[in-house]
């Protein structure tokens, strides 16, 4: 088991004991048979380092709980909306359930070079693209497909000779897919897979929300990867939402809705009849300046309009002007209130 790694000593010398320890930690996590218990006992008794490496491997696996618990403070979103102000968001936006984009962007760089990646996981490493909060990023791929990353997103692109694979780990991305019948294009978003030939569609995969696909042009197939029978085919102006229990809900939407929901590509946010509370939550995706509304009646007021995504203050002033409200500007927040 270890010999394959010893021949690649130049790669950074993965510790041979660690390889064994990782395998044992994985087995311990599922429970050992009697024979395995004896085998592990002999292995740990043979060398003090074996015991230590195993404890360290178990700690590394347990570490993910720690990273999860760090939540918002870890993702660096110090200015993000506190609990209760973002109705759709989970109460803590942990590392593993979201916020990967912020974490990866903050970390910068790649951890594994191609050969190291191949050693750990096999195959080619994906190319990662991230956008920061408030940033919209255009990525042209080798096949002339174009990805437009909305604020705070993370995608991994993995093209091979046979297939074009993209994984949306966090955020929202518009895909304009170049036609290439020989190489199917597929997007992974959580438990969903979206397959396309030549089309344009948007995929959203955000913490605490079910993944969603919005088709602007052409045709795509959407499927729960573990449930091939769940496949639905969606044409232009269709929204597909993942529901629990591996169910996919398909709904027709108007071209206006599609245009409104993709307005972010021009750096805009479009609202039609949404509450100020929802609008404030939407702005918090793009800016660290929070829109604070203490008055429930005001928060429930609905608005319509097209606004600059990176300008919550301008939005608040426009709203205040038309609803007869007051605006208070503070460090990191804008408050809307009535007298």
């Amino acid at each position: 088991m270890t010999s394959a790694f010893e021949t690649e000593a130049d790669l950074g010398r993965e510790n041979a004991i660690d390889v064994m320890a990782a395998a044992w930690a994985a087995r311990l996590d599922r429970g050992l048979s009697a024979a395995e218990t004896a085998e592990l006992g002999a292995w740990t008794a043979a060398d003090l380092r074996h015991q230590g490496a195993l404890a360290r491997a178990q700690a590394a696996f347990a570490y993910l709980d720690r990273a999860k618990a760090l939540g918002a403070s870890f993702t660096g979103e110090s200015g993000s909306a506190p609990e209760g102000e973002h109705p759709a968001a989970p109460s803590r936006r942990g590392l593993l359930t979201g916020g990967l984009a912020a974490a990866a962007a903050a970390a910068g760089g790649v951890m594994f070079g191609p050969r190291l990646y191949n050693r750990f996981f096999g195959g080619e490493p994906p190319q990662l693209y991230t956008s920061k909060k408030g940033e919209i990023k255009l990525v042209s791929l080798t096949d002339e497909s174009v990805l437009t990353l909305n604020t705070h997103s993370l995608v991994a692109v993995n093209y091979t000779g046979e297939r074009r694979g993209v994984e949306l780990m966090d955020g929202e991305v518009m895909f304009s897919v170049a036609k290439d019948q020989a190489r199917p294009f597929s997007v992974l978003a959580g438990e969903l897979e979206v397959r396309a030939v030549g089309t344009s569609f948007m995929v959203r995969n955000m913490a605490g929300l079910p993944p969603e696909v919005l088709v602007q042009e052409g045709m795509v197939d959407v499927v729960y990867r573990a449930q091939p029978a769940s496949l639905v085919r969606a044409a232009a102006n269709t929204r597909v939402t993942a529901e629990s229990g591996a169910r996919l809900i398909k709904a027709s939407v108007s071209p206006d809705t599609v245009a409104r929901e993709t307005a972010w590509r021009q750096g805009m946010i479009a609202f039609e009849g949404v509450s100020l509370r929802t609008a404030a939550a939407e702005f918090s995706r793009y800016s660290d300046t929070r829109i604070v509304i203490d008055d429930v009646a005001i928060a429930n007021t609905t608005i319509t309009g097209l606004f600059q995504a990176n300008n919550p203050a301008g939005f608040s002033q426009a709203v205040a002007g038309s609803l007869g409200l007051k605006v208070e500007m503070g460090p990191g927040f804008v408050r809307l209130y009535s007298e």
Partner: protein
Amino acid sequence: MTGVSQDRAAWLARNVLPHEAALRAWLRQKYVLGVEVDDIVQETYAILAGLESVAAIRNPRSYAFQTAHSLILAHLRRSKIVSIRSASDLELAGAMADTPTPEQVAEDRDELANVARVLSEMPPKVREVFLLRRVQGLSQRETAERLGISENSVEKRISQGIRALLWAFGRGGKRAVKPLRSDENPENGAPWRRRDKDSE
């Protein structure tokens, strides 16, 4: 001994793993002929894992440094060659093991960012197993059912992921990795090569 308890694993994850990069950097400085950093680190974990109780340990970082320090001394006593330099350098161990400075705390937080990066670079097949098992709290069997794969695959992916994490904790750290923009070719950057050179 067949592995540590969940509690001890969590304690090590919370109190020792984040300081491991600093511990390794310090051990490399104190380089002693014939003593491998990996060995000392593994033995340090073995001793921390074998403690009856960790409740009395007020400063785990300091405790881990002191444990590693005494292990080096034990190695030195066993070996025939003791260089004067290494012995005198080791006298300074106490200073290194004190309460962490703000810079050290910042470095430890970089370790968290490293883990996030490792996760984001894991193939989706491996990452989704970690998410279901560790975040949603499914068992390995339930994870296998949910993903429509064999239990053996789940176990193998967990093992793969742990290896990658171990590597990150052992070799990671802000000082060693040059930032690389996502639109640059990682092949050209090959940061792990630089990192290895730095560490020797």
